[in-house]
Structure formats: structure tokens, C-alpha cells
């Protein structure tokens, strides 16, 4: 006799509901825990440019700027490089070499962020200090350092996904273009690339998501200087100075410090809330663009 509800089905739906509850609960948790700071500062929390916790002043804009700045540097470096390299592996490399390259790149993507952070601290920091000597930075811990490190971290992700997108364009398309007398470069840019565009866009967006959320590596090389709000938003000068991102704030000792204080803790969880919302938004936009078939996140 068959039971009306199979145990397997019950368990599966139950586990799924549990997981959904956990992830949504996390969002709700941050929202609830951060209520005091919303009550105190309202939207000023999002638009304020100073963060002095002892004076009970909380504004996240400089951190948003820091996050945006390092992510912009990261993408400006990693997107062209990653897509160019992907064109090479997808269109110009013989098949066996391509698989080897893909494996190597995916292994690179698996290197833990703390190791990248270590490399940043021990190698990149001094290099940037020498590079920026003209602008007399206080140390090698700058927004630029963070951006460069992120570029290296995000590069394998973008390259691997861009390669997937390009190989997804069926071979007969390229063959037909070549048979008309188009050169290899022309067939890539006029036939393959346009059709791979959604996948390429989603590759870059995924890279962006990873850059936005990276904590540990950025924490170690960014200087963790609050209130770095630039006078001119598009100037490059602030990149030569230390800064703070949403993630580096959360990963620091201030989080421990804030744990006992209601308002301070609300501010910290407010930062977490902003981070959660921002990443979810970028991710949802990316999902719209990607066909989501055979994609490994």
C-alpha cells in the first residue's frame, strides 16, 4: 500500500524549505538587528560620509565608494584580459591545449582568498609602494593595491566563463563565415562574439559579484582607513591612499568591539544588510542575462 506522502518527498521539500528559511532568515536577521541605526540615522546611514563610532556617527558612503573603487579597478583589469585570453583558448588553441588551459585556470580560481591576501601583503604591497612613490603614499596599503589584487582573483572566473560562452557558439557558424572568405579575426568578432555576448556579460557580472564580496584579501591590503571620501568622485588620487570597503569593515576587529553595544552593532549589521542587498541585486541581473545551462557558479 502506498503512503500518500512519500518520506523522500517530505524530506526533500522539508530540507528545501529549511534552506530557504536560513538564507531569507539571514537577510531578516540583518534587517532586524540593524533597526536601531535606521531609526537613528534613517537614510543618512546610506548617504553619510563619516563613520565615528565613538561619537555615534554612522555613514557608509565612503565604504560604498571604497567597494566601488576597488571593484572598478578589478574589472577594468580583469575583464579585457580575461575575455582576450578566453578568445585565445576558445578560438585559437587546439582542443587538447584548451582543456589543459581550462583546468589550469580553474585551479587558479580555487586558490583561497587568504593566500591571495598573503601574496598581496608580502609581494604586491611593496611593488605598489614603489609604483606610487611619486604621490608619496603612507604605505603600500591602498585602494589601488586592493583593486589590483582583486583583478588577479577575479581574472580566472571571468576567463573560464567567457571561454564557456564562446565555445557555446556552434561550430557551423564559424565554418560558414570562413567559407565566405572572412579571416579568423573577422569570424570571431562578427559571428562568434556577438552571439556569445550574453554569456560574456554574465561572466563579467559574476566577476563583479566576486569582487564586491571579497573580504579577506581586500582586508589585508587596503589600509582599513575610514572616512576616505574623495572630493572629486572620478579622480584617481584617492586610489593612492588607504580606504575601507563594506567587506573590510565587517572583517575587522570593530565587529568584535561592536558586539555588546546595541547601536554600534546595529550599524555593523546595517553594513551587512547593504552588502547582502547589493550582491543579490548584481546576481539577479546576471541571472537574467545568462542562459543558465551547464553553468558552474
Amino acid at each position, binding site marked *: 500500500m502506498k503512503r500518500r506522502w512519500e518520506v523522500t518527498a517530505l524530506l526533500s521539500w522539508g530540507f528545501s524549505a529549511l534552506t530557504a528559511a536560513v538564507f531569507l532568515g539571514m537577510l531578516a536577521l540583518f534587517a532586524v538587528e540593524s533597526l536601531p541605526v535606521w531609526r537613528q540615522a534613517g537614510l543618512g546611514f546610506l548617504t553619510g560620509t563619516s563613520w565615528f563610532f565613538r561619537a555615534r556617527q554612522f555613514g557608509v558612503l565612503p565604504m560604498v565608494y571604497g567597494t566601488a573603487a576597488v571593484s572598478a579597478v578589478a574589472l577594468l583589469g580583469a575583464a579585457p584580459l580575461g575575455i582576450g585570453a578566453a578568445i585565445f583558448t576558445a578560438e585559437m588553441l587546439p582542443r587538447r591545449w584548451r582543456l589543459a588551459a581550462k583546468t589550469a585556470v580553474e585551479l587558479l580560481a580555487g586558490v583561497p582568498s587568504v593566500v591571495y591576501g598573503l601574496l598581496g601583503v608580502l609581494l604586491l604591497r611593496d611593488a605598489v609602494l614603489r609604483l606610487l612613490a611619486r604621490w608619496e603614499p603612507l604605505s603600500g596599503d591602498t585602494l589601488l593595491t586592493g583593486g589590483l589584487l582583486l583583478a588577479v582573483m577575479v581574472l580566472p572566473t571571468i576567463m573560464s566563463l567567457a571561454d564557456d560562452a564562446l565555445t557555446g557558439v556552434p561550430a557551423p557558424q564559424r565554418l*560558414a563565415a570562413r567559407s565566405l572568405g572572412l579571416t579568423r579575426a573577422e569570424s570571431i568578432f*562578427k559571428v562568434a562574439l556577438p552571439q556569445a555576448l550574453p554569456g560574456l556579460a554574465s561572466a563579467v557580472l559574476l566577476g563583479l559579484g566576486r569582487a564586491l564580496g571579497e573580504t579577506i584579501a581586500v582586508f589585508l591590503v587596503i589600509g582599513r582607513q575610514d572616512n576616505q571620501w574623495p572630493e572629486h568622485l572620478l579622480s584617481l588620487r584617492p586610489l593612492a591612499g588607504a580606504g575601507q570597503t563594506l567587506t573590510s569593515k565587517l572583517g575587522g576587529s570593530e565587529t568584535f568591539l561592536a558586539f555588546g553595544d546595541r547601536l554600534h552593532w546595529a550599524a555593523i549589521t546595517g553594513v551587512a544588510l547593504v552588502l547582502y542587498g547589493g550582491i543579490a541585486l548584481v546576481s539577479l541581473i546576471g541571472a537574467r542575462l545568462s542562459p543558465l545551462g551547464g553553468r558552474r557558479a
Partner: protein
Amino acid sequence: MLDALRIPEARPRSSAAPVLAVRGLSVTAGGRRQVLRDIDLDIAPGSVLCIIGPSGAGKTTLLRCLNRLVDLVPDLTVSGDVRFHGAPIYARGVDVDALRARIGMIFQQPAVFPGSIADNVLFGVRHTGRLPRRALPERLERALREAALWSEVAHRLDERAASLSVGQQQRLCLARALAGEPEVLLLDEPTSALDPQSTEAIEELILRLRERHAVVLVTHNLGQAERLADSVACLTVRSDGAGELEPR
């Protein structure tokens, strides 16, 4: 197989000057497996040459040797001589892209590019031809007329090419190849993916195309060969898997 068809076989003839002449063409895969052995062919202007034979005999490979599309397949080595208007195409320094622009190719599955019907037809010409802008619309119409597609699409040239039926897409690919005014047309089983009506339409088309181009048609359909061919080359598979011309 050839006995069943009442068509002269395509052995080298000394009379007509062939557009494409093949002598001793052999293709090996991975250095070991022989795909084609010692093929001799002449392709005369204004005629249809049908290449027939069982699956795996190397018909597609042979076709792709004629416009050097075989270069794009890894691991294949080509030896022998193929001459286009008397000039060898496998010599050093040959401009392969220019060669391919003068030889048109149609594949089994129509490979329609994203974009409008007009974009597709003019795709090759825009890159390879030195046509001034104003000459493009005339070339577009001429190609579509020659491919017997003009009356069906003249009023919607800006629509997406993907909205055409499969039979129309195949004729679109034909128009795209014709836009470059090629001297030779290579057709690789162009009707095997089509329904009977579209097949009939394309077969009629091929008979008309013969007037202005040399046509090489690969088909596994003997009836089609009988209907269309001026001459026939039959590939058979030897014991080692290599394709050879069936001697008379």
C-alpha cells in the same frame, strides 16, 4: 554504382578547360589513417559534378579540400595538387581568404547568422568585396533573385533571418554565397535536411545555377544525382577506410 546511372563519369578530359583541377589528392588523419587516396577530378565551368558514395567515404572532406576549408580541421594532412584556374591553391603564400571568397559553399544545415535577411546576404561581400556602398542593394537583389528567394522576402529584408523556414534559410545561405559572385559552388548535401517541396525547389535552382557557375554537389541520393548531374564521381570505401574514385 556507376552502372546504374547513365551519366558520363568525371575523368580528366583534355577538351574543356576546367575551373578546378584535382590531381592525386590524398588526405590522412593524424598521420596514420587514410581518408582519401589519389583523387583525380576536373570541374568544368557551366556543369554540375555530383560526388556520390556511401557515408564515411570522404565526400565532405573532398569538398572541403577544394576551398581549403579542410585547413580548419585539426590533424588532417593534405597532399596532391588542386588548381584553381591553373594556379595551385596549396602553394605557399596563397591568400586563402580571397580563394574562399571566389568559391561559394553551402552546408547541410543552413548556418544563418543573427541579424536581418539583408545583413546575412551581404555578410561576406561587406568584408571581402571591394564594393562601394551604393552598389550593395543591387547586389543584394541580384543574389536573392538568383537564389529564387527575392519574391518571398523583398518586402521584409529587415526582418530577422531566423524567422525564415528551413528551406528558405537554405536558399538564404545560397544567396549569401552567390552575393560574392563566385565561379564555383560547392554544395554539401544541401537538401538532406529539407522537406520534399524545398528539395524540389533547390534542385530546380541548381539546374539554373549551372549556367553561370561550376557546381560540385555532394549527395547520397542517387535519384538527385541522376536528375542534376552532368558528370559523376563515385567514392567507394576501401578496406583500410580510405575513399577512392571508383574506376570505370
